């Protein structure tokens, strides 16, 4: 099981971590909520928890708990600009259906 991140995503995560001046990486996760069942979690990580899987890309760490990894296996984290809007995007091959805005999904 694995996940990946694009170089644009790496660059932005690194920039935000430097600005925050603490934290070991970024946590990717999934939780049950929202209009379509599941939603993504994207947070800074101060301490990795026991059982967390850590994926490292050029010294940038992505931290995922084992349960979330089931839903995120094969996901690519990207950073995209759409017109004036910009931010992180989860490219998750497991998603079967998502709500109109894409904030929640189910597998």
């Amino acid at each position, binding site marked *: 099981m694995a996940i990946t991140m694009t170089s644009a995503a790496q660059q932005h995560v690194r920039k935000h971590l430097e600005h925050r001046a603490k934290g070991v990486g970024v946590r990717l996760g999934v939780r049950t909520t929202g209009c379509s069942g599941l939603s993504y*979690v994207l*947070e800074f990580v101060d301490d990795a928890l026991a059982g967390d899987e850590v994926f490292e890309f050029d010294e940038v760490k992505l931290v995922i708990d084992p349960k979330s990894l089931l839903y995120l296996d094969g996901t690519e984290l990207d950073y995209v600009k*759409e017109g004036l809007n*910009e*931010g992180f995007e989860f490219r998750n091959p497991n998603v079967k259906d998502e709500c109109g*805005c894409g*904030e929640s999904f189910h597998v």
Partner: protein
Amino acid sequence: MVLLQISEPGQSPQPHQRKHAVGIDLGTTNSLVALVRSGMPETLADQEGHHLMPSIVHYTDEGASAVGYEAAEFNISDPLNTISSAKRLLGRGVSDVMKLGDQLPYEFQGEEAGMPKIKTASGLVSPIQVSAEILRNLVTRAEASLDAMLDGAVITVPAYFDEAQRQATKDAATLAGIKVLRLLSEPTAAAIAYGLDEAKEGVIAIYDLGGGTFDISVLRLSRGVFEVLATGGDSALGGDDFDYAIAQWLCAEIGMGDSLNPMEQRILLETAKAAKEELTESDEVQLEVLDWKGALSREIMDTLIEDLVAKTVRACRRALRDAGVNVGEIDNVVLVGGSTRTPLVRKQVANYFEVEPMCSLDPDCVVAMGAAVQADVLVGNKSGDEMLLLDVIPLSLGIETMGGLIEKIIHRNTTIPVAKAQEFTTYIDGQTAMAIHVLQGERELVDDCRSLARFELRGIPPMVAGAAKIRVTYQVDADGLLNVTARELTSNVESRIEVKPSYGLAEDEITQMLQDSFSYAREDMQARALREQQVEADRMIEDLEAAINKDAEALLSDEEIQCLKIGIEELQQLRIDTLEHRVLARQIEALGKLSESFAARRMDASIKNALAGQSLDDIERS
């Protein structure tokens, strides 16, 4: 597909629950919008990549047709319909604006309780409407950038903005359909952008040199509250003056006369501006203007702008003196405004304040970034222990009392939001109404302060003078806006007013009012004392006359009555003639002595009346 931002641990928002708030720096020349993304404040660019948006709106007969750079293109072809610097007019009265008239090319029309309006092709336009167009444009930019609706905004205002100017700014936001989370003073925003609010204590100077204005503010941070100790500056000094000085030098070097056509002037100014910007990085710049070729070194530029920079340093010195702070007490200096990129400015500021100024953030963006950080906290995207910044009111708020005096209810530099109440009473028997006059300023007499509002409390039940209890409450909300309530406590009749004055004060007027309050301190004290004695004299005359009318015939001889009447007349005359409160006080005392025996006899008589027909036992028992 929604694009995500990184949250703090444990604070990932629920889907569709994300709150979006921006910070807006509504500037005189340029405006900016910023927001916090993944914990980092950043200013937002438009489609063309411009972060700054000129604060300019162009009007045609169909309304506001263009804002920002697009509007700026009409500056020369259609100056009367291209409105810039509207911020200078916000919250001002017609008479204030007339004073600015020479600088602004527009045609004004005053009406509606003093609000000035500008004549344009689309009819009369108020400065509030112009500002609203600018705000609306920035909000549209932010919403495109977030791909979501905004939940609110923090808008910055100069520290010296008074109630009217703040209210006008808020009105502009309302007109633009923006929920204002907070108005924040610009220097405070700059300090937040550098995270200076995280320290517990400190004195900070904010040196803000823009294109056309210079502001210096001295702030004291104590227990998480920024207090504005002093503000100063020059509303007609900025980077444009640097350009002008360099252009003059060019003109002399090239050997051009004084009579340049507008085209030549523009070319020279543009070359000067480009040279100035290049000399920020390099020591020398090669120039080609018209047929002339030459070089300008940073050293020469420094001599050209030396006097201008020295002028700002003098203003800093004055501000420190007003603040009562020594240079050594300044912990940090923050640079704001594009013109602080000039190396000589940085050098002189560092020399004067004896600290290395903070300039790691883009000086054009600092204020908007600080506002964005504050907006993010206010909208609830940060955990609860994040400090909420408080502001202070710039001038004391008071109420008119008898004799044209001011009783201060909320003192200047009180942190807001705040509510304070004071009890007043009636002055005359059977008084059923009371006029409440709300004032702002530091002086002792009503005439020397600024009138904000007047209203009346009616329906007070008739009582003897002094029996009614009227509680007047002054409440200032987090944006510095004032609500006044008056309530008679026995009957609960109430009257209230939201202070929304129709015109504002200029920065230098506020400074003037503050300075006057110091330089006239002695006169004010004398004046207050005199008014107090005058009120006392009036009261004594009134009481004594009433007593004479009632009891004199029964208790006094004709001679005694005559004597008292002369005493009253003398006091009346002196009340009009003298400016010496001590003289008046002596006369009041004299009349008091003169009427002492009369008062004693009245007392005896009323006791006798009360006891008449009762046995001693009854009295002892009761």
